[in-house]
């Protein structure tokens, strides 16, 4: 088995990191389509309290293995040239990016479908937990819907 690619990054994913990631593909001229999904922390209001940040934690070793399985299954299903997945750990403030999924292919159709499958699989299968922290310091635990 190949060594799983590192997915987790500490803190938010910066727009600069995302732009550099796009730039790195300019030499791969067989690619005709990129598709990107960005997850952003929402300032939800729950019971009158506004979320200021989400603190992410994970069962990291299991999560990295599941990310690897999801990658392999998606490569097997769609004709993709490359795929990158990054997810935050630790605190990510409202308005900042916590998930960056990037797929590339020769043609657009594979990208559209793959990105949808990937994001849904990540949300459903990966043991990541989110503590929603309110302005007043209280917190609740987020549940994916």
């Amino acid at each position, binding site marked *: 088995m190949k060594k799983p690619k590192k997915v987790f990054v500490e803190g938010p994913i910066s727009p600069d990191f995302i732009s550099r990631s796009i730039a790195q593909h300019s030499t791969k001229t067989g690619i005709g389509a990129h598709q990107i999904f960005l997850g952003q922390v929402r300032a939800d209001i729950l019971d009158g309290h506004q979320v200021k940040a989400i603190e992410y934690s994970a*069962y990291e070793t*299991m999560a990295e293995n599941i990310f690897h399985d999801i990658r392999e299954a998606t490569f097997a299903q769609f004709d993709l040239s490359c795929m990158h997945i990054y997810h935050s750990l630790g605190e990510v403030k409202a308005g900042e990016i916590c998930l960056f999924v990037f797929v590339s292919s020769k043609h657009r159709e594979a990208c559209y479908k793959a990105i949808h499958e990937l994001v849904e699989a990540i*949300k459903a299968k990966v*043991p990541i937990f*989110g*503590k929603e922290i309110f302005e007043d310091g209280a917190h609740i*635990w987020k*549940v994916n819907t």
Partner: protein
Amino acid sequence: MKVTVLLFAQLAELFPSSTLEIEVTSLQEIIENLESKNPDFIGQQYSVAINEEIVQNEIALKDGDIVALLPPFAGG
């Protein structure tokens, strides 16, 4: 047999430590042990992973197993 129990997120908040080494014979016994340590554990939602594989039903534990109790996922 001795197993390691890993608790995450809201489940970890219920106990002094998120890692427990306990002598048990079954998954059910782990649950009962945690419920007796803190009754707030009763009724919590979680899935169970044994050695990083999600299990749906009660399965036989082995000495040294790592049993993780995983609250609802919130990635993305």
